[in-house]
């Protein structure tokens, strides 16, 4: 079912149809939000992506052309991200006793720890490259979009997508290599 048909269903009262839209666009919105945050906190980006999708539902009646839901949702994401600012700090939550909750400190297996470490390092270095390069990398690895699909989503040419991906990989390769040589 096309985006336009799903949007018309949602507007007619079928909120379940919005679930299909949310699943279809989640990773693209996540990549957009994560590329806009300076922090490498993936949870903050997920929170933002959820806010975008919720806002998209709330504002759906303002969408003039249902067949262009994706581009419109990208505009919604832009507004949401600018509200939250480029530096988002995840607020700790208070439990009922009024004390701050803390994450568990149980040990984890070495191989999972190593994988988490590699992920953390890559996310850290990713946050240091320019925003438009960051987004292309996240789009490519989160959703394995083709260059043409990424170009349509970003509103640029296929050649620009190729160039941005190449530049991003070159920067990341150099920075990751420098980290290894400093260990």
């Amino acid at each position, binding site marked *: 079912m096309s985006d336009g048909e799903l949007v018309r269903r949602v507007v007619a009262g079928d909120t379940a149809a919005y*679930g299909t839209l949310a699943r279809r666009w989640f990773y693209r919105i996540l990549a957009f939000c994560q590329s806009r945050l300076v922090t490498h906190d993936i949870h903050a980006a997920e929170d933002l992506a959820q806010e975008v999708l919720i806002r998209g539902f709330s504002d759906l009646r303002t969408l003039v052309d249902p067949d262009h839901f994706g581009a419109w949702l990208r505009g919604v994401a832009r507004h949401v991200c600018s509200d939250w600012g480029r530096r988002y700090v995840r607020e700790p939550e208070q439990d009922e006793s009024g004390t701050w909750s803390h994450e568990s400190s149980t040990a984890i297996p070495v191989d999972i720890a190593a994988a988490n470490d590699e992920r953390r390092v890559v996310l850290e270095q990713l946050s240091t490259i320019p925003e438009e390069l960051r987004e292309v990398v996240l789009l490519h690895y989160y959703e394995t979009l083709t260059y043409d699909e990424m170009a349509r989503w970003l509103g640029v040419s296929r050649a620009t997508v190729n160039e941005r991906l190449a530049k991003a990989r070159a920067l990341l390769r150099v920075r990751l290599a420098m980290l290894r040589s400093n260990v």
Partner: protein
Amino acid sequence: MNCETALLMLHAFVDGELSAPDRALVDQHLSECPSCHVQLAKIQELDGVLKRALHPPAREPAVERVLQSIHRISESIDPISPDHAPRRIDRDSRLLRGENDLTPRGSARKTTAGTMFVLAITLLIVFVVVVQMPKENPAVAEITMATGSIDVRRSDHARWTAVKGPSVVSLPANARIRTRVDSLCEIRTKSDAIVRLNHATELVVRRPEQIELVTGELWCRTPSTTAMEISSVKTSSRVGSEATFTCPTSSESQWQTTPSNPVSCVGVSSTPIEVAVKLSHENCTVSPGETVSFVAGTAPAKSGYSDRLVARAWQLPLLLLKNPRDPELRQRLTELLAAAGHSKMAYLYDEQIRQLGPPGTLPLIAFVRSSESREQPELRHNAMRIIADLAPRSAEADLKALSNDDDPSVKQFARVALKRLVPDWNDTPAARE
């Protein structure tokens, strides 16, 4: 194929984005060029690292949370908890109760009777529970927008709970709402008044037409049908025990206070408003830009002057949450543009403004079209001279409006601009529409 071309295509080669002929060309080059082969290996190694590190997070939990939120938006909070909802009886439960006649005809009759019996018991339970449960007050307002986390206390006996994001939240009578140092929010009352809370502001929604400002700053716009009563309970006898004011219908005002300080009203409307002061049974006129402080037992004290745009600037992050076509947002942006145009005309030389080219005329046009500019005809005329020479085609609608201006000079310059931009433009009343 040379190395330079091959290197440009290597990323697309690794990602499977090359056409078959291009892929074959790159393959052949790689088989002949050790240097490019090394580059390919580096890209493949990095690709592997990025694939492992950037595996996408699970999508379903996030989508599920979104659906739960939109379900709440669609249907509002259900006072009956899931524990009280009717339970379905399944086959296994019936077997456990000894209902073991499972012949098709017999089981159908037993199913119908059993279902009716269970339905009757469930309805009875639901009826008893609903009657016994303390009913929440009906909603008198709802939170429509927020720029971050805000806290809500639904009654004096309830705890503060954090509310985040754009979900619409209903507020019963006497609910308290509190913004944090980094959040703003907007509420709409059932009487269609709009109230916006600045950072670190707390208020109580008593009724759709009555709010109590505990501390902080709020902006209020009343509808054409209902006035809004704003009260504030004081902790310092120096400022009186309680202050209550009535904002008239179709008015806009901004209020500030803390528990130990007087209540102040800032005139952010473009016209004066008459505020009724309950204790003194008198009206007080608050002019645009004026700040008026109210202390019990003394006359309202008028102090200072604030620019209306600056006084309301804190609301911009909220307005930017709205649809770009929202009239209030567009009006506020036009006011800001007009202020920029006024500053340019007041502080820059003609040549400096002209150097900005056609885009630089947009703030000037906004300034000339603003009501405030009519008090400065000379600046208007100077702006129109520049507009006549440089305004872009996109300003045609504004220029047509200015071609009907009361000021003959403004009218003339606008028509010069239109003739420049639209060669076949005729200076007739129909064309100026």
